[in-house]
């Protein structure tokens, strides 16, 4: 397995995309810290970048990479190599390279400009979102043989989780505003990794008071130890489930 990971890793580094991605994150994070001296505000602006850009880049890059390494996968399948090893090696190398890019791009400036609980939370949710969307991309990639279709599915995932889902959630909250919805919304938020990450972040920034009663309820729930464990656990599920479903499909796939 390490040998295969090594080859995939080289292949990813050769495309230089990861390098540009690291630079982009580094430059934008640095710029944010230069523009404002209030770390809280900087983290707030960074959060918006992280919540939009990280999922998009992770999911699209992973899908393109998966299809570009089809030749490599085919070559390996004729060799005495387990299919699971091929699949998980692909996952580990893609996820690792994107995570390293994020740690350098966002983590380095944070360390330079001061570490705080909120900045550490930002690092944490960025890494988790990277892993979640790499998993989703793997699921989309094994579902179809057609590269364009797979990229379509991944973009749909992204639109759904970053835009459409929030709209639906708002609509539900608005239509049923006469009923006590707090518990329901906690459940619904868990169905979207981006929302989950956003709430974890907002609570750390102490601006939940702006959200009124719901904010207080969230603070009560997500701020507690159990709430933290719950959200971390749900994010972990978001990583593991698509990855394992993808693995099951990949093992039975005709190539």
């Amino acid at each position, binding site marked *: 397995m390490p*040998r*295969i990971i090594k*080859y995939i890793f080289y*292949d990813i580094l*050769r495309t230089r995309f990861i390098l540009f991605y690291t630079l982009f994150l580094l430059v934008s994070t640095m710029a944010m810290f230069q523009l404002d001296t209030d770390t809280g505000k900087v983290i707030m602006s960074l959060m918006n970048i992280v919540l939009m850009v990280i999922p998009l880049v992770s999911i699209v890059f992973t899908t393109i990479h998966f299809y570009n*390494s*089809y*030749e*490599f996968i*085919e*070559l*390996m*399948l*004729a*060799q*005495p*190599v*387990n*299919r699971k090893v091929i699949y998980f090696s692909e996952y580990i190398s893609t996820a690792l390279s994107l995570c390293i890019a994020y740690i350098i791009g966002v983590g380095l400036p944070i360390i330079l400009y001061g570490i705080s609980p909120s900045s550490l939370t930002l690092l944490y949710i960025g890494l988790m979102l990277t892993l979640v969307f790499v998993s989703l991309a793997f699921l989309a990639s094994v579902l179809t043989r057609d590269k364009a279709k797979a990229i379509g599915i991944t973009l749909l995932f992204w639109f759904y989780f970053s835009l459409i889902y929030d709209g639906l959630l708002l609509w539900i909250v608005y239509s049923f505003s006469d009923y006590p919805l707090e518990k329901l919304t906690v459940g619904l938020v868990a169905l979207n990794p981006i929302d989950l990450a956003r709430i974890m972040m907002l609570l750390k920034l102490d601006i939940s008071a702006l959200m009124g009663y719901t904010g207080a309820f969230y603070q009560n729930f997500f701020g507690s130890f159990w709430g933290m464990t719950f959200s971390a656990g749900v994010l972990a599920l978001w990583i593991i489930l698509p990855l394992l479903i993808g693995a099951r499909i990949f093992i*039975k*796939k*005709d*190539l």
Partner: protein
Amino acid sequence: MIDLNRVNKKFGKLQALDDVTLTFDAGKSYALVGPNGSGKTTLIKSILGMVIPSSGEIFVDKENIKNHWKYREKIGYMPQIGRYPENMRIGQLIDMMKNIRGNNRKTDEELVHAFNLTKILDKRMHALSGGTRQKVSAALAFLFHARIMILDEPTAGLDPVSVEILKEKILREKDEGKLFVISSHILSDLDDLSTHIVYLFEGKIQYHNTIANLKEETQEGRLGKAIAVYINQNSFQHTLQE
């Protein structure tokens, strides 16, 4: 050495393999022939575990290959269309295969030298012509002294000199007791290389016997002619029955 027991494969509505039962024995060389889309490549890919049969079992050395991968150590495979990581160099590719196979035994680099690949080791795969690609595929297939050699259209796209090099190599290895399964449309090549013939048509095995027998049955000296006569006879019979 390889046993297929009632193997079926469906791609949607298309029946690519239809109840194929077949045995390949060590030391023999099998020619796999049939029209385009008759299931030759699907059969080969099923043995390699790249295509998973809808039903039926495949055994390699008496071991069911389902969910196994270790058995592929015994197989050298030359694909019909060699697809390789495009920005890798030939040398890197060969090193990688050695590394991944993890074979401690000495590798067989005869073809690498015979095809003059040593001179272009630093060429990238995307810069190669179809024929050179084919040479790389052949060299890789023979690299690990595998006891089972599966070659999917090995001579297609090769120049005459290289075809002769490859054919001599195949004959020499066959005499050492290796099993060869060769699919091809170039019947004159198969005439020299194979002892047995498997004729596939629409996923079914139509004929499976030695080449000598086929020639005797059809009273023809050349394999190409013999197959043509055989096909004609059979379609003739079909029309009579209808």
